[in-house]
């Protein structure tokens, strides 16, 4: 029996269908990322789980119990939004304690739990500050502490890192992951950032146009995408024809042997060079290490030969 199960969920806003017959299962302790472009329905799916949206049809089942019509407060979720949604009139301490004061706990217990949650997100020195006095990253940590302090069965994260600077985002990415593993808390995160999904998730759910395109581990999603959309949305891909594709870093180059091609442009990417090659497979993007590039002696307009290993060709479902 899975920890969380959603069955055939459909949700409409007027005529517009945002979720079309979506089903998904999540195991206890798992970190699942829902990944997709904006407007694909991923945030709505999260809100359905939390009970913040009503649905036209389908079920939400937690530990075998149907909770489709159970109000949010009875589902025991912790939730973190992109906009932090901290109470501006309360300090860090009060924000974190907010969810506990209604529960039957004495003051000492509350204080201990709040302190622990604040320590967990490393904000011990900022307890008495107001949200406006904190940086974006710190504010998001407060939101995180507020979500975990109630010891939820599930942690729902709605684009929690999107509003932050690149550096802070990567730092917090690791912190969330560590925290999740430490407490073994089942986490579902919505994001449009493929790097975030690949680096954090145990499993990725790729959504597009109100439906789930594919569910799988990061490796599966990247290496064996099932549809053209998934292949194209995650990473860069060369489509050879309508049912086969290849990643740029899997294409080999050489001065002889293979399919002939002409280099039309070169981009320096730091760790590697990206070549744009005209060949009988069409315009290909090829990523090569610097030493390979120098060895083959690639310049603008150089004629080279390319190799695509058969085992690296991605087979896509015909549309």
């Amino acid at each position: 029996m899975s920890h969380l199960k959603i069955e055939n969920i459909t949700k409409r806003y007027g005529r517009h269908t945002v979720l079309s017959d979506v089903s998904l299962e999540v195991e206890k302790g798992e970190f699942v990322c829902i990944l997709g472009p904006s407007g694909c329905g991923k945030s709505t799916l999260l809100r359905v789980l939390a009970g913040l949206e009503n649905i036209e049809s389908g079920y939400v089942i937690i530990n075998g119990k149907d909770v489709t019509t159970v109000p949010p407060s009875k589902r025991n979720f912790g939730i973190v939004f992109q906009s932090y949604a901290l109470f501006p009139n309360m300090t860090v301490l009060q924000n974190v304690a907010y969810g506990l004061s209604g529960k039957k706990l004495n003051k000492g217990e509350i204080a201990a739990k709040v302190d622990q949650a604040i320590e967990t997100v490393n904000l011990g020195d900022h307890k008495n500050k107001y949200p406006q006095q904190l940086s974006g990253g710190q504010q998001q940590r407060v939101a995180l502490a507020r979500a975990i302090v109630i010891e939820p069965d599930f942690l729902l994260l709605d684009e929690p890192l999107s509003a932050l600077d690149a550096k802070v985002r990567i730092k917090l990415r690791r912190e969330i992951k560590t925290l999740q593993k430490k407490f073994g808390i089942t986490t579902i995160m919505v994001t449009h950032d493929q790097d975030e999904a690949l680096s954090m998730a145990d499993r990725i759910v790729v959504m597009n146009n109100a439906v789930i395109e594919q569910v799988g581990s990061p490796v599966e999603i990247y290496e064996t995408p099932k549809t053209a959309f998934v292949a194209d949305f995650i990473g860069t891909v060369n489509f050879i024809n309508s049912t086969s594709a290849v990643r740029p870093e899997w294409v080999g180059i050489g001065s002889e042997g293979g399919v002939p091609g002409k280099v039309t442009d070169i981009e320096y990417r730091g760790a590697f060079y990206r070549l744009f090659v005209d060949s009988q497979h069409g315009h290909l993007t090829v990523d090569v290490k610097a030493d390979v590039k120098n060895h083959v002696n690639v310049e603008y307009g150089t004629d080279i030969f390319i190799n695509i290993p058969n085992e690296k060709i991605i087979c896509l479902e015909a549309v």
Partner: protein
Amino acid sequence: MTLVVLPLIILFVKAFEGSDGSFIGLANFIQYFTTPNLTNSLFNTIFVSITTAIISVSLAFLYAYAITRTGVKCKKLFKFTSMLPLFAPTMMLGIGLIYLFGNQGIFTHLGLRLPLYGPLGIIISEVIYTFPQVFLVLLVSFSFADNRLYEVAEVIGTSPIKTFFTITLPSVKYGLISSIFIAFSLSFTDFGAPKVVGGNYNVLATDIYKRVVGQQDFIMGAVVGMILMLPAILSFTVDRFTQSKNQSTISSKSEDYKIKPNKCRDLVFTAYCAVINLLILMLLGTVVYASFIKLWPYDKSLTLAHYFMDSPATGGISSFFNSLLIASLTATIGTAFVFINAYLIEKTRKATLLKQTAYFLSIIPLALPGLAIGISFIFFFNADSNPLKFIYGSMWILLIANIVHFYSVPFVTATSSLKKLDKEFEIVSEAMKVPFYKTFYKVTIPMCLPAILEIAVYLFVNAMVTISAVIFLYPAQFKLAAIAIVNMEDAGDIAPAAAISVLIILTNVIVRVLYELINKKIMNKNLRSHV
């Protein structure tokens, strides 16, 4: 600017002068506070204003909550009806009460005897008068909300009552404080309602009128004028303070509040809004009805005679046309004046100190009650040494007084609409060698057209209903409609006074509706041009 500052300084100086013009320090104030009659009206005023503020803010709070946070039906209608008192001179509210609860009132004849003339009548009128203004402030506060906060509370399992006290109330806190001060200072300085239903109950506004117009005691008038300014200044300071505090609480990432369906709650609030609407409509409707009645309450046959009444002593239908003229002039000249001023202040790239001073001076009139402006204008324009003395006693002084009196709100509107424009427009034009006036005419004005219209309507409506500043300044041969109402009511001609009130409110409603229609057209056009 000079027109604001100089008269004020003179008012200030006069308050400290003896009747012979010598400086006597605080003697006038001491005399004021030791005259029991005078201090009495001060306490009366404070009592009336506090009571008004409490009732009006409580009612408007529930009303604004109903409109923004519940699924009440016909919100547009409710909003519009509650705005109606803004379009009426405050005397009209008093007149309505007289027809309902006065000696010959409808309810009085049905056996409901209220001690209307005095504090009760004043408070009821002031509550209705301040209600729309307080409601507007609270409406703005309530409409800024981050739905995510409510969702967090919901997920955590916070009770609705706790949610209200920990999220809703703090988010409207500053609006609430502002609105209390607004209600207080509006009723503190209002002249129209106490004049009509005050009876023998003296308040400061009627005091200053009796002192200046009745006894020609300008010095004591100046003293009362100064006292009248206090709550407005306080309210103004509080407002500035709360506005600076208010900024950080809401961010662009916030989500709009989503109203959850709740039939029982909606029913209760719809009923509440309907009751408030009925009361307002009943009061105004009674005045409309009474204006067509031959002789209330004896001969209830219908007539149009009251609308055509005109006398050189009190004024009449001709005063209504005078008001139309002044209101139109105020709207056109005033709008141009306000907008150009705001433009110059906003677009000046250098001299920030000068800019700040100019900005501050533009906000001051907000704190000035009309009566104080009226008195200070007498001192200023009636002085023999003033080369502008010829303005005194002409209709132009009414125009100037109106523009000064109602300057601040349009100024803020103009400034904020100018702030929304790209700062680089002028620089780009300069780079293209297009003179700035061409950019002003071709870009700035069209882009700010909605704000400009709003300003014009605001000035027009206020110029139609105002009584406070102009009561001291109107030339005998050029009476305004609002003044005619006061004179007629004084002379016992309540029905003609009612008729003039109806004309004023009707004109304002028509202007407002026209404005909405034009505005809709502009908005649609703008939408198209942006796509």
